[in-house]
């Protein structure tokens, strides 16, 4: 009854298309129907239902895993149409995890053995889509037989399936590899050759070494074949093989160049170019030819070809930059191409071309482009400029003044989002390059003075850098009063608290500097020699000092009640200082009162602070913290163990990294480190141990230790109160430093002298984060072992393994013992355990077809551990294989 009204696939499709809305309702209705119909025993109904379900699955992503068993029933029907539907459903929906996948193994085997070609094809295709380890293992023999079939399409498909077999069940190599190689040599049927080459191409890309012995065959195909697809694949294989074997490279250069010049197919030509450039880059003539061809590609009208030309140039750029320079104008023209792909490629190429001599020009051109292009590409350009210029500690920059002004310019570009990077570089340059500090400060001052920039959120990081620089190197400022005004202007309320904190700190430093220079000039002292001339230029008058103090009262006063802890702290620092100083100063500002003592007091206070601020901060090495000698009394691990006991799981595991071994731990400890640069170990470890104590006691109140700026500052508020105020304030600056630059610290290192360049402080090591050693990718070791053994193994091993197969009934241990026994003897042992007449014929096989046994034996030699597990795996196929006549395996 049901089948009378069963809707066919067409009906469903039409129905679905006619649905305006309520598609899901329609789909669920159909789904219900299908569930009912699919349970029927009639093959037609079932297969139609399955077909509908497959459709729903592929279009609407309806889950069809529940129908797995029904699909299996479908493929057992003799009717081809039904079978096809079943196989389609299986290919689409079965995955490795489908529980019933083992059930199809028998059916697949039946179909693989069938005489009807299309059934065989169906089964082969299905196997290639869903084959897992068990299926592949069970069906390897059948596939092996089919590889020798007389019908070409079947053979072709069998070869295709072999790839999947090898991938899932590496031991299949033993069985099938020889036939595979044979098919490689059969040049009579192009489809076979192309299938085989395809398989080898995939295999070679995973592990090229194992297929090196087959190079002669590939070479023959390279020279003989006329089929472009095959040639492309062969070229790909050679790309992988050539680097491993220089003689091979020499041999193939000639044919490849010939191909490149003669062929009319652009795809083949491009592949030749690619092969030459990637793996044959040492052969100059070939590279020149390739460069010529690239030229042709670049001027073509088709954007595809132009893109490919640029891509090829990018491949060749690292080694043969002349090729890129030849086409310079074209590359620059492509920067303005509407296609984003082409633009990106040309930008990359331009970056490659950059060198010391042309960096200025190129950057100018690029910045021009950036201002004219859309935001995203603009940022890409800026990012690439920044990264190239800062490469290897600013290797290519000779004129730092220009670079610093360029950074300032970039900050002003409308779409610039590279605030953080620019900030990092400004500060980095400030620390490393002494001579450029005046310029830096000038650029910073310009940025700070411009009130419009305060509103742009992307620029806040840069402004914070500018403020810090001006504060740190305030001695280079021409007009510190002006600087103070800009630092304290009312619009700074737009800034985020962290940036404002930096502003306040810089204002403090500038204030101290002004006072110091005023007092010095007022009393005519001959104190510090350096920079006296600059100070005298500043014309600090009593009025300006008063004005400054008033300004601070006005601007900073209200901040002392701010919600942000950092701002509050720093505001109070400044206000406290001004309160201390003011009564003393105001007396000295009025020349009538001659309270000399108080003046001396004032100048003492000011000088103290000035000294603190004038300590130079240099770049710190990544590994510096690891080099700090641990003082005797300090036992690190004990502390931490207590910490664990105290806080249990409330502290995250990373808090254990308070230890001083790793270099990535910036806690309050390091900031206090930085406060006393000259005397590192003793006082700092005291303070850190104090801090550790504090943390232990109040562990719950500490935030999880991450590289968080807010956290740093919050942490900074906890150091023991006995520290000098100056220590705390300086460490705040150091906080910024630690935040902005890298971790840890080091006593100042002498820099390398670079001719005519300003001196850039470089650290011998630890400039860059150590790149964690890359874990080598897990290769398919078993597969490559297998292949290698097949190709290179010796014949005697074949004997032993065949014997082993004959003895598979014995248990694993015995076999192992036998093999060990055989191993200890020389290779060509005649072990008369089991006589087989075919042994002699086996021995005569001199070609690389030694398979199965050799590899098996060597594998066992190498992988003793894996042997046992392999045993379990091998026994079933050995069972199966031993049933087929032995010559099949060997010949």
């Amino acid at each position, binding site marked *: 009854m049901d089948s009378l009204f069963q809707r066919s*696939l*067409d009906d469903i*499709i039409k129905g679905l*298309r006619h649905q305006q809305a309520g598609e899901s309702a329609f789909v669920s209705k159909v789904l219900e129907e299908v569930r009912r119909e699919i349970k029927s025993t009639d093959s037609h109904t079932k297969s139609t239902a399955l*077909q509908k379900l*497959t*459709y729903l699955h*592929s*279009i609407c*992503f309806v*889950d069809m895993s529940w129908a797995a068993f029904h699909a299996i029933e479908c493929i057992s029907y003799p009717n081809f149409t039904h079978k*096809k*539907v079943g196989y*389609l459903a299986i290919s*689409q929906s079965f*995955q*490795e995890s489908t529980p019933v996948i083992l059930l199809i193994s028998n059916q697949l085997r039946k179909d693989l053995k069938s005489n009807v070609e299309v059934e065989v094809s169906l089964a082969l*295709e299905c196997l290639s889509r869903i084959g897992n380890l068990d299926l592949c293992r069970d069906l390897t023999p059948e596939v092996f037989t089919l590889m020798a079939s007389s019908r070409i399409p079947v053979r072709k498909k069998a070869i295709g399936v072999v790839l999947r077999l090898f991938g899932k069940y590496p031991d299949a190599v033993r069985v099938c590899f020889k036939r595979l190689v044979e098919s490689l040599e059969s040049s009579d049927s192009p489809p076979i050759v192309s299938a085989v080459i395809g398989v080898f191409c*995939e295999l070679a*890309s995973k592990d090229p070494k194992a297929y090196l012995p087959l190079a002669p065959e590939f070479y023959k195909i390279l020279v003989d074949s006329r089929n*472009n*697809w095959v040639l*492309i694949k062969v070229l*790909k294989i050679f790309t992988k093989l050539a680097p491993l074997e220089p003689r091979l490279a020499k041999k193939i250069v000639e044919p490849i160049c010939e191909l490149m010049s003669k062929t009319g197919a*652009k*795809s083949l030509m*491009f*592949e030749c170019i*690619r092969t030459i450039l990637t793996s044959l880059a040492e052969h100059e003539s070939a590279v020149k030819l390739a460069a010529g061809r690239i030229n042709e590609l670049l001027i073509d009208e088709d*954007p*595809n070809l*132009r*893109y*490919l030309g640029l891509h090829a140039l990018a491949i060749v750029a690292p080694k043969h930059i002349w090729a890129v320079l030849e086409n310079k104008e074209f590359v620059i023209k492509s920067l303005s191409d*509407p*296609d*984003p*792909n*082409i633009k990106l490629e040309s930008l990359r190429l331009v970056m490659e071309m950059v060198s010391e001599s042309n960096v200025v020009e190129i950057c100018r051109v690029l910045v021009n482009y950036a201002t004219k292009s859309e935001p995203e590409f603009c940022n890409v350009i800026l990012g690439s400029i920044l990264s190239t210029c800062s490469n290897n500690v600013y290797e290519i920059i000779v004129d730092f003044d220009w670079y610093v002004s360029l950074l300032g310019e970039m900050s002003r570009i409308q779409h610039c989002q590279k605030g953080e990077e620019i900030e990092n570089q400004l500060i980095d340059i400030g620390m490393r390059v002494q001579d450029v500090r005046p310029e830096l400060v000038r650029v910073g001052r310009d940025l700070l003075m411009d009130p419009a920039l305060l509103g742009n959120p992307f620029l806040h990081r840069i402004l914070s850098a500018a403020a810090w620089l001006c504060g740190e190197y305030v001695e280079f400022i021409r007009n510190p009063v002006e600087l103070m005004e800009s630092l304290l202007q009312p619009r700074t309320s737009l800034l985020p608290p962290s940036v404002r904190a930096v502003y306040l700190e810089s204002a403090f430093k500038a204030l101290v500097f002004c006072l110091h220079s005023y007092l010095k000039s007022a009393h005519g002292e001959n104190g510090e020699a350096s920079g006296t001339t600059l100070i005298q230029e500043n014309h600090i008058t009593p009025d300006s000092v008063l004005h400054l103090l008033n300004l601070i009262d006005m601007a900073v006063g209200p901040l002392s009640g701010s919600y942000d802890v950092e701002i509050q702290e720093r505001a109070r620092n400044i206000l406290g200082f001004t309160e201390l100083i003011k009564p003393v100063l105001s007396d000295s500002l009025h020349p009538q009162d001659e309270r000399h003592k108080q003046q001396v007091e004032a100048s003492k206070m000011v000088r103290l602070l000035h000294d603190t601020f004038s300590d130079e901060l240099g770049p710190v090495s990544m590994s510096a913290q690891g080099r700090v000698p641990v003082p005797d009394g300090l036992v690190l691990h004990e502390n931490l163990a207590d910490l664990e006991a105290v806080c249990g799981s409330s502290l995250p595991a990373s808090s254990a990294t308070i230890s001083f071994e790793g270099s990535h731990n910036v806690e309050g400890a390091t900031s206090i480190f930085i406060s006393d640069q000259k005397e590192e170990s003793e006082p700092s470890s005291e303070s850190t141990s104090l801090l550790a104590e504090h943390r232990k006691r109040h562990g719950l109140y500490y935030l999880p230790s991450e590289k968080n700026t807010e956290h740093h500052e919050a942490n900074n508020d906890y150091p023991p109160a006995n520290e000098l105020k100056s220590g705390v304030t300086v460490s705040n600056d150091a906080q910024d430093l630690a935040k902005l630059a890298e971790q840890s610290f080091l006593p100042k290192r002498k820099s390398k002298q670079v001719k005519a360049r300003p001196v850039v402080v470089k650290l011998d090591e630890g400039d860059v984060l150590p790149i964690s050693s890359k874990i080598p990718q897990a290769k398919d070791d078993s597969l490559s072992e297998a292949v290698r053994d097949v190709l290179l193994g010796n014949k005697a091993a074949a004997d032993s393994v065949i014997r082993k197969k004959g003895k598979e009934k014995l248990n694993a241990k015995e076999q192992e013992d036998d093999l060990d026994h055989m191993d200890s003897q020389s290779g060509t042992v005649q072990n008369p355990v089991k006589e087989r007449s075919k042994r002699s014929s086996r021995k005569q096989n001199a070609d690389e077809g030694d398979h199965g046994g050799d590899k098996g034996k060597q594998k066992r030699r190498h992988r003793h551990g894996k042997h046992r597990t392999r045993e379990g795996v091998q026994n079933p196929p050995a069972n199966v294989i031993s049933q087929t006549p032995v010559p099949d395996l060997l010949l």
Partner: protein
Amino acid sequence: MIRFILLQNRQGKTRLAKYYVPLEDSEKHKVEYEVHRLVVNRDPKFTNFVEFRTHKVIYRRYAGLFFSLCVDITDNELAYLECIHLFVEILDHFFSNVCELDLVFNFHKVLVLP
């Protein structure tokens, strides 16, 4: 290596999807959506190759359908363009003057082709 073949129309409906790598259904959905967005917005004057996650998508537009192939980075793009064309010619030959409706109603035949 080809990772998947997608046939999509301008509206984003997938007419054919053949995956050669294992993917969850939800991932497949996401991938199809992303590829469609990537491919539909491109000007015809642009190149036919786009970078997509860690692979490449090579696409071509035939009438209202986008044929997209996702391949590895190292593969030869031009060869795959030819591949796409070959596939289209086969479809044409199979259905004699194929149109989108043919693909819609005979999906099971088309699925077996590639």
